[in-house]
């Protein structure tokens, strides 16, 4: 089951560039939350702070508090543990090129020392079914490389890989921006299915996508969160002028 995320006074820097300023936000459990905003507004940085990927860049810095469920991720745990509980799907599909489809899905478990073959088989099948890829790849699981799939299939493979470690939260950083419309709609259907079991945070440039998949939407601009509300309200009756300008296409 998913858990909620409570963000308090989050600030982030890349070198001297203050990319996130005083973000306060509650992301509800078992819902999809969309983050929109123009390029460079800090939304990607924000999701990367939620699983401590931001700090893998040597010049990056973070202050503030992020609680995932009961766990303060900057106080209570190591980054490695957190990333096992908070899965991430990146903008460009990034399957491990030398691994088979099966090994890609099982990689999170195998690389953390898990080796019971029967259980792995089950988890791989379940994860691929959950990511709606099973029927397309079940015959070549161990024969084909993850890199041999099409872009849309690769991205669903990456989702399966993230689901296999059974995370509580799934972060998606523009998961469909490199995909064609058919693959995009498959990913969106998938998000719709998955949010009953996981808390999903999705960064997107595509406002229709946010409207289709998310219950809550946050609008970011210049490193600040301008508005956070129900998706319906953001798209029909935003309270901030800047949000309105953005969603009506006046800038950004």
């Amino acid at each position, binding site marked *: 089951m998913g858990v909620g995320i409570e963000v308090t006074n989050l600030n982030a820097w890349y070198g001297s560039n203050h990319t996130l300023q005083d973000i306060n936000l509650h992301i509800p459990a078992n819902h999809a939350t969309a983050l929109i905003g123009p390029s460079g507004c800090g939304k990607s940085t924000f999701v990367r702070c939620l699983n401590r990927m931001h700090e893998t860049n040597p010049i990056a810095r973070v202050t503030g508090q992020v609680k995932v469920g009961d766990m303060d991720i900057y106080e209570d745990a190591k980054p490695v543990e957190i990333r096992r509980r908070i899965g991430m799907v990146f903008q460009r599909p990034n399957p*491990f*090129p030398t691994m088979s489809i099966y090994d890609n899905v099982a990689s999170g478990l195998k690389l953390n020392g898990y080796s019971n073959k029967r259980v792995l088989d089950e988890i791989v099948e379940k994860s691929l079914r959950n990511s709606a890829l099973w029927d397309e790849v079940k015959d070549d699981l161990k024969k084909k490389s993850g*890199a041999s799939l099409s872009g849309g299939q690769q991205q669903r493979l990456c989702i399966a890989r993230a689901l296999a470690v059974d995370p509580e939260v799934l972060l998606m950083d523009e998961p469909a921006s490199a995909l064609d419309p058919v693959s995009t709609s498959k990913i969106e259907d998938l998000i719709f299915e998955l949010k009953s079991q996981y808390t999903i945070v999705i960064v997107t440039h595509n406002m229709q996508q946010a409207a289709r998949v998310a219950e809550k939407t946050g609008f970011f601009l210049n490193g600040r969160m301008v508005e956070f509300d129900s998706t319906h309200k953001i798209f029909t009756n935003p309270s901030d002028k800047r949000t309105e300008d953005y969603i009506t296409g006046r800038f950004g």
Partner: protein
Amino acid sequence: MPLSGNPIRSKIRAVTDNTVTGLAVLATVLVIAPLVAIFVYLIYKGAASLNLDFFTKIPKPVGEVGGGMANAIVGSAVLLALASLIGIPIGIGGGIYLAEFGRGTKLANAIRFTADVLNGVPSIVMGVAAYALIVSTHISLIPFTGHFSAFAGGVALGIMMIPTVCRTTEEMLLMVPHAVREAALGLGVPNWRSVLAITLRTASPGVITGCMLAFARVAGETAPLIFTALGNSFWSVDLNRPIAALPLQIYVYALSPYDDWHRLAWAGALVLIVLIVAAVSLVRYVTSRGVLKGAS
């Protein structure tokens, strides 16, 4: 008028295209020609002296015709195995440090500089250094030191392999896309594990090429062995004693005044090249068998 519709321009374009293609083909031929020439000449000079004795017998004493280089073939194999055992793990380990853990640090820059300098050190100097460190000094507690030995030869060759292996490993690791590293980190895989199981594995075809280059290079080295392995006219696979090696044997036979030995030297050179090509091809074949359909 649009550019594409101009007949003179398109003519010029076609001529330029053909010229560049022609130059590239010419360059390729010039690259391959010396290799083919050497190979053909070796076969012409050496093939006649190849017989079963060459691969099964040890050298005959001066004045007797016949004999073979069996001990030198086995000796080279022993030396190269020891050199690979030393050079490949250290080289790969160093390359991993340079690319993954020490990026931008002073130590890494120092190691990179040293490796590049080491790569340019003439092999005879490497032989003299190994002689001074291992052959002429006996280091207590370390066996095999204090005299000429197969061990000293293997160490000299191994040290020569390190810089090539190290730098190619580094280059190949740096070519692995950042997205692949991020994917591993995003799964909560500890960094060291992600480096070994993901990054190094993704880079492995290039790393193996680097190892093979280093291997092939030292396989033909003579100079470092003169002061270390010394050579041996008899059967020996003992690491503690001087050992025969193909390049050494070729060197000695080629400088001798006997026609029969000259012929054997040619045959030895042919065998050396064939064995190097065979070893590299075998490694390529074995490592490519595990590659999956569509893997990049």
